[in-house]
């Protein structure tokens, strides 16, 4: 334990004060309910991967694959015809493509955020949800990447964006926000994968060891010979698959020491990274001189919005999983409460930014700026503005009420509303400013084409496909970290707690 010089010199007066310490009791729900022991946690999480896929998984997977094919069709259509098949036309040259990009990137933020910021803030409740959220991040980045990639039109030249010596003998142009995006999003994707993978190493070791143990025990109680040998081959596959990925992890104290430090550092690196990525996405808009885009609060406002939508998505995914896999002891009401409260907080920050934008648009006394905001609220896209405002600012206000937070299905519906609202936020920002720019004669109205709709709808399928694959093959929760927050892991006291409940 940390040695402290001031500790050694407590005088009588201090001791008298310390003797008076009598904390009031505060009821707080534990992070793993029902006095579960280590074995239960290991089994609960590993069985998700090790048992046969439940029927609902196959159903969801089929639906997801069919939906994902929409994106494929949309993209084939686009590449074979040209980027004009999207509803992009003067003056709105950034339509759904950028809206969807920012939407998905925003969703992607909660993952690394839950892991990183909550890790730095020592929020123990992160453990049950961080793995799934990180996976969500990576898959959302994959979905997000599609849109700017294909928006460049000649997608086969997209590699010109990277600093490789290229066919035109010129280098990428670092003064362009698009180039910043390339670096930000690819760094974000890469670091998220590293973070995700590193967090998974100990759990992959667990899955590896369990497969080896089952193989050496050789007991497979299945209904038929065929099923038995299938189960055995699955374990052989697992042995090698997890064996390679676990990199020889041995759960040694020394391993954990370096691992924890590295994890903390990655969390420390990811936090400014999360901030920077959506900041840079906001620069895409804010460095322009277009009214409604050029406003200095964009960076923190986009970040808050991203976190908001990210948590919305985590709730959307975790609530059904909790019910389907019976994870109520691991994802407790306390977890849901906390996530609801973060939605409330970030939703309100977003509200603060909406109002601040309006106020400064007026205070700045720039007629174009004022018009842009009046136009948002009362112009041709006011319907989108109202959807955005009510979903993002008013919906989460319901989370003030405990009864709402405790009603899982209501929370789930609200989390979907949050996602809808955040999509509309990006729509409002992108489209309203462009549709009514400085030159009234060129004003227009944007509508997506069928290809836009296909491509966007399909990304939900792509996202679900990847997420379902994750559920199937990788540990859903960090086993080691969940054990770490359980009372049995405390090296001081609570001895035998774990064993008794067996």
């Amino acid at each position, binding site marked *: 334990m940390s040695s402290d010089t001031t500790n050694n010199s407590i005088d009588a007066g201090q001791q008298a004060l310390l003797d008076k310490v009598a904390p009031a009791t505060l009821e707080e729900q534990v992070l793993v309910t029902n006095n579960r022991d280590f074995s239960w946690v290991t089994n609960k999480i590993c069985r998700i991967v090790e048992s046969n896929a439940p029927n609902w998984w196959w159903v969801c997977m089929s639906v997801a694959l069919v939906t994902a094919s929409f994106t494929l069709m949309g993209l084939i259509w686009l590449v074979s015809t040209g980027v004009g098949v999207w509803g992009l036309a003067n003056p709105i040259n950034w339509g759904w493509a950028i809206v969807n990009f920012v939407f998905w990137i925003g969703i992607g933020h909660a993952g690394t955020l839950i892991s990183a910021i909550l890790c730095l803030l020592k929020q123990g409740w992160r453990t049950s949800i961080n793995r799934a959220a990180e996976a969500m991040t990576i898959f959302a980045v994959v979905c997000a990447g599609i849109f700017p990639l294909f928006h460049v039109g000649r997608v086969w030249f997209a590699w010109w964006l990277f600093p490789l010596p290229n066919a035109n003998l010129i280098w990428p142009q670092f*003064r362009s926000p698009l180039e*910043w995006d390339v*670096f930000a999003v690819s760094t974000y994707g890469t670091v998220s994968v590293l973070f995700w993978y590193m967090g998974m190493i100990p759990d992959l070791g667990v899955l590896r060891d369990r497969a*080896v143990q089952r193989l050496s025990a050789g007991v497979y109680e299945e209904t038929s010979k065929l099923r038995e040998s299938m189960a055995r081959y699955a374990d052989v596959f697992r042995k090698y698959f997890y064996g390679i990925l676990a990199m020889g992890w041995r759960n040694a104290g020394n391993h954990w020491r370096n691992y924890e430090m590295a994890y903390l550092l990655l969390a420390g690196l990811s936090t400014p990274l999360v901030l920077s990525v959506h900041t840079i996405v906001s620069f895409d808009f804010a460095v322009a001189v277009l009214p409604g885009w050029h406003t200095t609060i964009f960076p923190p406002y986009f970040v808050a919005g991203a976190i908001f939508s990210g948590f919305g998505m985590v709730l959307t995914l975790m609530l059904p999983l909790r019910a389907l896999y019976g994870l109520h002891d691991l994802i407790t009401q306390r977890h849901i409460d906390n996530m609801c409260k973060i939605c409330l907080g970030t939703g309100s920050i977003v509200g603060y930014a909406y109002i601040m934008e309006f106020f400064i648009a007026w205070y700045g006394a720039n007629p174009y700026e004022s018009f842009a905001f009046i136009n948002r609220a009362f112009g041709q896209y006011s319907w989108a503005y109202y959807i955005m405002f009510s979903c993002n600012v008013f919906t989460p206000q319901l989370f003030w009420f405990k009864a709402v937070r405790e009603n899982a299905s209501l929370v789930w519906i609200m989390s979907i509303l949050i996602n809808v609202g955040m999509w509309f936020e990006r729509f409002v920002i992108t489209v309203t400013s462009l549709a009514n720019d400085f030159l009234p004669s060129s004003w227009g109205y944007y509508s997506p084409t069928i290809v836009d709709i296909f491509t966007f709808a399909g990304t939900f399928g792509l996202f679900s496909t990847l997420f379902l694959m994750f559920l199937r093959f990788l540990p859903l929760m960090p086993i080691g970290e969940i054990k770490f927050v359980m009372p049995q892991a*405390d090296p001081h006291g609570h001895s035998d707690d774990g064993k008794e409940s067996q």
Partner: protein
Amino acid sequence: MSEEIYGMVASFKDTPSLYHAAEKVRDAGFKYWDTYSSFPVHGMPEAQGQARSKVPIFTFIGGLTGLTLGTAMVWYMNAFDYPLIVGGYPFFSPVFPFPIMYELTILLAAFGTLGGMFIMNLLPQHYNSLFNCAKFLEVSDERLMIAIEAKDGQYNHEATKQFLESIGGFDIEEVKA
């Protein structure tokens, strides 16, 4: 064929006893030994007498490399090799390429961290003698272990066994290399 010995493992019943046993092994002066648990134990590095992890050094080197690389890259590509007039910006300035420099700093620092973790842990090491021990695999579930390696100068079959027993170890067995 005389088989070589990797070391000796002993199990412990719960976290506090592992923790206190680790303190005793440390105080007994062993060098090549380690604790094994499927979760990090709070304060275990101190109990094992280990210093603060060196991973931050790798992170720092990675970050510094990234920053230098980012700056040099933007300068070389946009100001030296192919200057191009865009939007009235200067060819090089620390302002506009800041996102690039920043992202590369983070990227390489992250690689440095992960690499540092692997290097400091001497991983990947897909083969390890400890995996030969069937009980060792149960560490993944809830077994808690201490292993003392044979290459430690103080290692002695009988004495070490007695020592491990005396600090509360059970299921003691020798692991072959």
